[in-house]
């Protein structure tokens, strides 16, 4: 679960966004869509804690694992400056990922970097021969990542951008509301909290079936021990705090208490 791995490639995929590939055969072997890694971004005591990143895709045969990330603070800035061949300490795969049914029709809703875990999911769903519709929103067209890769997988793709530079002008939830939610056996989503909250509201209105959302919360251990990554969900006994890292990061949209 804890490995010192080598950075194989690191590519800038948009302003401030990078895709980093590492050689981590054990992780590549066992990782499931929706799971994540805790990465150490520094060799000094500052930044101190590991940072969580979704597994963006794996190449089992070649033992490769990719993450897709945006520079938002010191840890990600240090990561972006890491040289190829340098060693990186990773901990994972962690968490409970998405359900991947053998067959069905699926809707995937991605907002911004939410595409990171969903891309891996889409790959798996398509590999099983399923029909996948993807709604994907971002600030502008330059921030819509992995479009070529998605096209190559022949998913049905609808995009939305805040400034209308690609697809619908507005949020991805607006787009869904406008176009109507396509029929699906299961809905998946990942993205910034306001988007997930709005999507959950829309799905509730539409009385749509099960939806699996990947959530984010600040983490310390990533292993279910510290109880730092609390999210409020409705359980049988009422609202309780669950751990994003160990009980999630994937939760049912309907069980999350949006605050």
């Amino acid at each position, binding site marked *: *679960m*804890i490995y010192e791995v080598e950075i194989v490639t690191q590519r800038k995929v948009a302003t401030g966004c990078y895709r980093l590939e590492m050689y981590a055969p054990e992780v590549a072997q066992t990782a499931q869509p929706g799971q994540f890694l805790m990465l*150490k971004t520094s060799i000094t*005591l*500052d*930044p*101190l*804690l*590991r940072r969580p990143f979704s597994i963006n895709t794996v190449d089992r045969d070649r033992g490769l694992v990719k993450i897709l990330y945006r520079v938002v603070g010191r840890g990600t800035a240090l990561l972006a400056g890491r040289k190829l061949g340098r060693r990186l300490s990773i*901990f994972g795969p962690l968490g409970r990922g998405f359900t991947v049914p053998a067959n069905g029709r699926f809707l995937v809703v991605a907002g911004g970097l939410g595409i990171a875990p969903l891309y891996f999911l889409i790959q798996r769903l398509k590999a099983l021969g399923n029909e996948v519709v993807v709604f994907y929103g971002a600030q502008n067209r330059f921030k819509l990542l992995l479009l070529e890769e998605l096209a190559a997988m022949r998913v049905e793709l609808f995009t939305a951008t805040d400034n209308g530079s690609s697809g619908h002008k507005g949020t991805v939830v607006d787009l869904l509301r406008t176009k109507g939610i396509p029929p699906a056996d299961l809905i998946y989503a990942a993205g910034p909290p306001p988007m997930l909250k709005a999507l959950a509201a829309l799905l509730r209105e539409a009385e749509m079936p099960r939806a699996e959302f990947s959530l984010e*919360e*600040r*983490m*310390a*251990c*990533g*292993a*279910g*021990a*510290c*109880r*730092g*990554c*609390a*999210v*409020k969900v409705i359980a049988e006994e009422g609202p*309780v*705090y669950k751990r994003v890292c*160990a009980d999630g990061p994937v939760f049912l949209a309907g069980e999350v208490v949006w*605050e």
Partner: protein
Amino acid sequence: MKPDLEVNLAGLRLKNPVLTASGTFGFGLEYARLVDLGAIGAVVLKSVTLHSRQGNPPPRVTETPAGMLNSIGLENPGAPAVVSKVVPELKRLGVKVIASVAGETVEEYGEVARRFAAAGVDAIEVNLSCPNVARGGLTFGCTRGMAAAVTAAVRQAAGDLPVFAKLGVTGGNLLEIAGAVAEAGASGFSLINTLPGLAVDLRQRRPVLGNVTGGLSGPAIKPVALWAVWQVYKAFKLPVIGMGGIMSTSDALEFFLCGATAVAVGTGNFVNPRLTTEIVAGLEKALAAEHVSDIKELIGAAHNGK
């Protein structure tokens, strides 16, 4: 020859002096797949109250320079659940268990300690950093009177078990409080709990933590922890479990030299879940390299002539 790492913590014999710090290793079982629990000197459980507690609203953790803040808020499933589900499982795995007891009243502390003692744990740690509801949130560790009352209640409930009073360094005078709990029957001290702290979310112009304030841990506080261990070791004859920012074997050695009989790894577990067992191995290596045959030779060694 392998150096001797065995220590005697107020009657509790440990095969090595490396523990987990309360609240940073869950109930041990969370790490069972990843860490050889049997190789750790003892697992100190997360603090437990009588009834289950939900804890504080998120965000509950945030990073600070060379440290972190947490405001978990004593989330725990309550003593009955821990006593029936966790303790037997740990014992089955051959793990030495130190229960950390918490409460809102003196009576609650005593009751939780009684249940853990009955369940057969190996020692009790008293988390004195809980707010006293009767005193409007002032923590029990803040005044001599409250600290002594809690310690005495736990001491009585714990039977023959060693009782370690866990102290912070704010709120009151460390040596005064330490003296009061020693008199009330503490077998030793756990030093230090987190420092109070706050982080600001500049963009949103509000505190980062849902609970506004939290506890500061990690390397940032190591100098304060070493100071506390140094002072308490010098003033009292009782054994000390030292903790605060231990991230390496060297850090652990610093605590022994200042007077700790054992050390506990807290925040370090988050960065490296195997840190405890790696420090056990690291101590063996470091002692062998320096021809120290017994870790006990190092305990308090930096006090020579000071």
